[in-house]
């Protein structure tokens, strides 16, 4: 049995504790905003916050999130108005949109720790999140606009 908080709600899971958090979120809780992209922490599409840290949900087992607090894109802001989400909309970042929840969660985690990142810090933080449509330039601008250093 694993106890975990997801978007502020207490949950318990009594299945296979080797199951990655990703499949628990998607298949068991129906929180499909967290996307499946590669399954091996290479693309960042499944990025969520675990105790405030950006984590690839595909590569962390349920046993490793016991008693932790998980925040997904659905729980980032009750109205969807987190500064990163607003910045994303203001520069029309998405094309297909599939990777964007992961990108936003990664950026939100960066800015929580580093409110005024340099371009280099943005590069370093975001390079684990792949966008095949190629929205990187706008992602970069959106992160900077959402930061205190914009």
């Amino acid at each position, binding site marked *: 049995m694993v106890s975990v908080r997801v978007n502020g709600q207490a949950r318990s899971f009594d299945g296979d504790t080797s199951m990655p958090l990703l*499949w628990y979120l998607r298949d068991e809780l129906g929180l499909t905003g967290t996307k*499946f992209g*590669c399954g091996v922490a290479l693309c960042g599409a499944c990025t969520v916050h675990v105790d405030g840290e950006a984590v690839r949900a595909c590569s962390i087992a349920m046993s490793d999130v016991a008693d932790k607090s998980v925040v997904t*894109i659905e729980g980032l802001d009750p109205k*969807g108005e987190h500064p990163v989400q607003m910045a994303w909309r203001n520069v029309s970042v998405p*094309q297909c949109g599939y990777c964007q*929840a992961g990108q936003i969660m990664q950026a939100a985690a960066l800015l929580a720790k580093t409110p005024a990142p340099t371009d280099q810090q943005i590069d370093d933080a975001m390079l684990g999140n792949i966008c*095949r449509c190629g929205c990187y330039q706008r992602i970069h*601008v959106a992160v900077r606009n959402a930061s205190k250093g914009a």
Partner: protein
Amino acid sequence: MTYQRNQHDVAIANVSRRNLLKGVAGTAAFVLAAQLPAIRPAMAYATGAASMPHGVVTNPHVFVAIAQDGTVTIVAHRAEMGNGAARTSLPMIVADELDADWKRVRVVQSPGDEETYGNQDTDGSRSVRHFIQPMRQVGAGARKMLEIAAAKKWGVDPKDVVARFHEVVHTASGRKLGYGELAEAAAALPAPALDTLALKKPADFRYMGKGDVTIVDLFDITTGKATYGQDVKLPGMLFAVIARSPVVEGKVASFDATATMKVPGVVKIVKIDGTPAPAAFAPLAGVAVIAKNTWAAIKGRDALKITWDDGPNANFDSVAYKAHLEEAVRKPGKLERNEGDAEAALKSAAKVVTAEYYSPHLAHATMEPPSATARMTDGKWEIWTSVQSPGGARDDIAKRLGVDPKSVTLHNELLGGGFGRKSKWDFAIEAVLLSKAMDGAPVKVVWTREDDIRHDFYHTVTAERLEAGIDKDNKVVAWRHRSAAPSFMSNFKPDPKFPGEIELGMGFVDTPFNVPNIRLESGEAQSHVRVGWFRSVNNVAHAWAIQSFVAEVAHALGRDPKDMLLELIGPPRVVSAAEKATTSWWDYGEPHDVYPIDTGRLRKVAELVAEKAGWGRQLPKGHGLGIAAHRSFVTYVATVVEVAVDDKGNIKVPRVDTAIDCGFFVNQERIRSQIEGAAVMGLALAKYGEITLKNGRVQQSNFNDFQVVRHDEAPLVTNTHIVENGIEVPSSGVGEPGMPPFAPALCNAIFAATGKRIRRLPIGDQLA
């Protein structure tokens, strides 16, 4: 370090339509009347839409519904994969002609059903090209119906009323009625005849060509609410992954699922039979594991013991095949176009420049791996998936099931990337087969990334050989180009071993150069993998080779590459490949007179981009500029890349400038995003893209060995320069044509920076 990433720092006003629409679930009074026959419209100009399956539909009843509160619902019938055409640009065209307030418009996605909605095959950069005219007629028809309804209500002549921004006004008295108030009466009217419609004058357009309309799914995408095929969830749904034959045309010889059945959550094992070539989009042979969640299915698959019968492609090796393709272009091939006498002109030339180029197979690697869910209830099938051709997929599935297409509903979700991969609906057929094996219970097939990379319909591999004969005055007088690439037609008929007219039309027989002696030949190339079409298709290889070769010829003659390019394009004229091509000349399915090859427009984008990019400007050490221009999908694009190469051979792209002439454009904002994305995807294929095979097996598996460009490698600045055209210039397309010029412009820039010529993609460590 400070730099500007692009020109989008200025915040674009956020249109928060979603909030306005909250609570609007009222029944539309203007009911979709799908049973009405399709109207074949008279268009201002003809397009290839007429020859696509099911053509176009212009009936307002099919596409527009207006609720009593004035909310306008517009049906998006094509697939949305990120370019914004299907769910934003086309509905926006309807809304503009309807003179609706875009803030009060809601877009709903149609199911796969071409008889009702017209062609839905979202491919070939066709959405705006084929549907700008029909969607204008839909909007204008709905507007006219509202005007007639208002005139009836007031008892006045319809000529004296006018629809204006969500209201109909009686001009003499100033009386007004909102669209919502008129909806019911308007809905009861027949669709007006097309020849009675008055289309708006361009000066009256509110949205078309006006700039920055954000995509309708923007809020949902940024909040995780947007639903893709992978995200479908049904009560009682089961999850499946499939171990597929690692070799195309292979079969399951035997398997042992004992260990799999011990994995908690695994429900059933289903063997899937393969289909002999040509298999079209039939699933590959394999063994499916159906489970209560995806993880159990994945673990169950890991525990399978399968013996494969690899079949006829068991020994296929892409290294040996590369040599085979290169051989094929070193000898005379199948003649595809002949003008003058290139053989004789090469023999008598003062100088001959020759170069060979090789570009490998590529995987599409959409961020959303393929997925589909199917269930059958009371003999009715339902499928939820993300495909580029929802109507074609539905009809094919119905045929395979031996049922009436009307008993099959295909719900098309957002596509997490398409790029041509999701034109093939093999995964949707898999879902249906597995649901059938579970007596119709809902089953979702999940492709993992490894499945996606190893079982794609791959972008074709190409070898090219170009020879240019130069006379004593340094003029190019002969042009011989041989190209060999396995054909995607091998999916549909016994392998033709030579490209079909579609493949030839993509940057080969349509070569626009002003050279008196031109000879184009295809080399023989048998297919051993599932060849598919990938964004821009054969244009990628052809443009890379041709535009690289132009710069090579320039270098050999000591000329400026831009001047050489313009000289080869020649004076403004219409090039017709029709009488010179030995097979019929396919021009993206479009009529040659409406979308001619206009070298004036090609010149113009090349000149424009050179000017905007500051061609010839002073650059830091290790930097270089490269240029390329290419017409594809009846759109003209030219790109200048600035590259920076360090002493270890690492590449950076400080700046990209692209000029595009796509005829009359609808939404600049999405044109810019497509061009920015094309630069990133073009850079990815140039730097890293390569699928190799050994013993018939794809050697790559995930983003570790099939690398794509990441955030820190993206071009720092991408400037898009869009040529302005009036509505009378037929709209073309934008999703694909940004891609082909990028790789050659990059490679030409690398040559300018380093003196090293790239003739084999990917670049990989060739500069190290």
